[in-house]
């Protein structure tokens, strides 16, 4: 009897821990939304999202420049991170000799482990001054952010793509080679199309990482809340908006930052859903 009660107790406790993730996500949503919704109500959802001017002291809360900044920066990061990430993945999965795989893969994993504040620091010390020398202006720019974020999302894109490429059945490759195709033709015309959904999922995951990135971004993009007119112009992202102003914001201003968090949350949610959908569709075939 005692033994049985012990079993039930163990199960109940484990069950509780299992539901913790669900509880945590719900708590986060509830608290961030409760804090942000009053600002959305006060400012109006449309003028909050599409408003072009962010001047908290004057009571102007429009996050359009930050929304555009986040989207541009994410696209920039993808433009740099995806060719490198997918390129490395193809090389590692198909062409590189085992010896090199054993060097490249840990190196890229190392890249993934470096905290974002280090990337930001490097950008601030090297990249920003370099861009200032080369192109004039301050150097704090969309370009600087894209380059650094591109490097930061590379490991995510690479690992997920490599898994996708390795998951393509060997028989596809053998059939293609047997038909007289070269190894590259096989990769290009058979393996990559077969791994397409996995690679797309990798890209979407990379986008999720880029859009949520904070520290590196606030250190190198200049944080000016104006829609950029060139890649050398400074930008401010949604994450940057929160990180920079949370320290001194109060009242409606603070709520507006939580509302910025809500919009960010929605973007991430859509991206995560998209990634899962792509992966699920890929798994079905």
């Amino acid at each position, binding site marked *: 009897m005692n033994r049985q009660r012990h079993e039930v107790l163990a199960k109940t406790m*484990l069950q509780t821990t*299992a539901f913790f993730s669900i509880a945590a996500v719900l*708590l986060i949503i509830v608290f961030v939304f409760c804090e942000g919704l009053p600002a959305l109500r006060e400012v109006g959802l449309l003028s909050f999202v599409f408003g072009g001017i962010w001047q908290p002291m004057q009571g102007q809360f429009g996050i359009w420049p930050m929304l555009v900044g986040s989207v541009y920066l994410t696209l920039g990061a993808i433009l740099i991170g995806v060719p490198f990430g997918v390129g490395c993945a*193809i090389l590692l999965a198909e062409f590189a000799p085992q010896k090199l795989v054993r060097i490249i893969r840990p190196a890229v994993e190392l890249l993934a*482990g470096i905290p974002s504040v280090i990337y930001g620091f490097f950008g601030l*010390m090297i990249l920003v001054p370099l861009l200032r020398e080369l192109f004039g202006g301050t150097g704090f720019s969309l370009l600087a952010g894209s380059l650094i974020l591109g490097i930061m999302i590379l490991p995510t894109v690479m690992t997920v793509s490599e898994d996708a490429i390795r998951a393509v059945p060997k028989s596809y490759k053998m059939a293609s080679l047997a038909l007289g195709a*070269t190894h*590259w033709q096989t990769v290009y015309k058979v393996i990559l199309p077969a791994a397409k959904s996995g690679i797309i999922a990798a890209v979407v995951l990379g986008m999720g990482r880029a859009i949520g*990135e904070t520290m590196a971004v606030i250190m190198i993009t200049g944080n000016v809340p104006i829609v950029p007119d060139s890649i050398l112009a400074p930008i401010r992202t949604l994450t940057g908006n929160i990180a920079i102003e*949370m320290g001194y914001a109060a009242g409606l201003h603070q709520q507006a930052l939580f509302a910025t968090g809500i919009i960010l949350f929605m973007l991430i949610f859509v991206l995560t859903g998209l990634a899962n959908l792509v992966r699920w569709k890929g798994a079905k075939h």
Partner: protein
Amino acid sequence: MIITVKTQQKIALAVLWMLAGLTIGALAIILGYIFVKGLPFVNWDFLSESARRMGREGGILPFAISTLYLTGVGILVATPIGVGAAIYLTEYTKQGFLTNMIRFFTEILAGIPSIIFGLFGFIFFVITMKMGWSVLSGGLTLALMVLPTIVRTAEEAIKAVPESYREGSLALGATKSQTISRVVLPSALPGILTGIILGVGRAVGETAALLLTAGSSLMTPISLLDPARSLSVHLYILAVEGISTEKAFATAVVLILIILAINMTATRLIRRLAPKH
């Protein structure tokens, strides 16, 4: 001009090798530059002294201790919950709606950006629970952030324990919970440890969430309710406020070395695990 398929392959390979080379090059430049600039300033005084004049002089001891406390709280809270959840997911439930739900939410938790954790930690721990900017607020926020990593790796590790182990234990008359605590968990331990170490790595490097939840005091925290400045936050403040480039580089070197040591330990553990199963 017609390019033969052989040439095509050569060009493609050249491009791929160039991409990989540039990637490794970028890593080498980032780490190399920081080490060259920072290593000369890392010495015993830097590691063992408190910061003076906002960090312009002195060392980083209070921030190293803060990092240890914050990470410690985070890991101590997240580990039992994460491992418990992993046991429940693998040993107690069948593949179904409930497990899918828990996994889906764990996935969502993993995808939430750190600044959102910061917002939540601020409004929930700092304000609502009245913990203030403190080791506790920051540590609990970190616990939420590393939870998905621990759940996922522990789940993989437990799944990898051969079914025959469980059958053997049950056949000897052990109960399910005895089987789990005496047979399954010990054999899954290295895998679980790997997850915990990866969690430590993430917690040590975290900055944005701590900026909003742990404060940025220059003092060494004594109690859990004292504010604390982690090494990563210290680096950020030194660099962005232009307090001291030298100290910033030196702090960056220390931070990178800690992360490297942590990740190498994890990799080593994973490698030792791989050939067994």
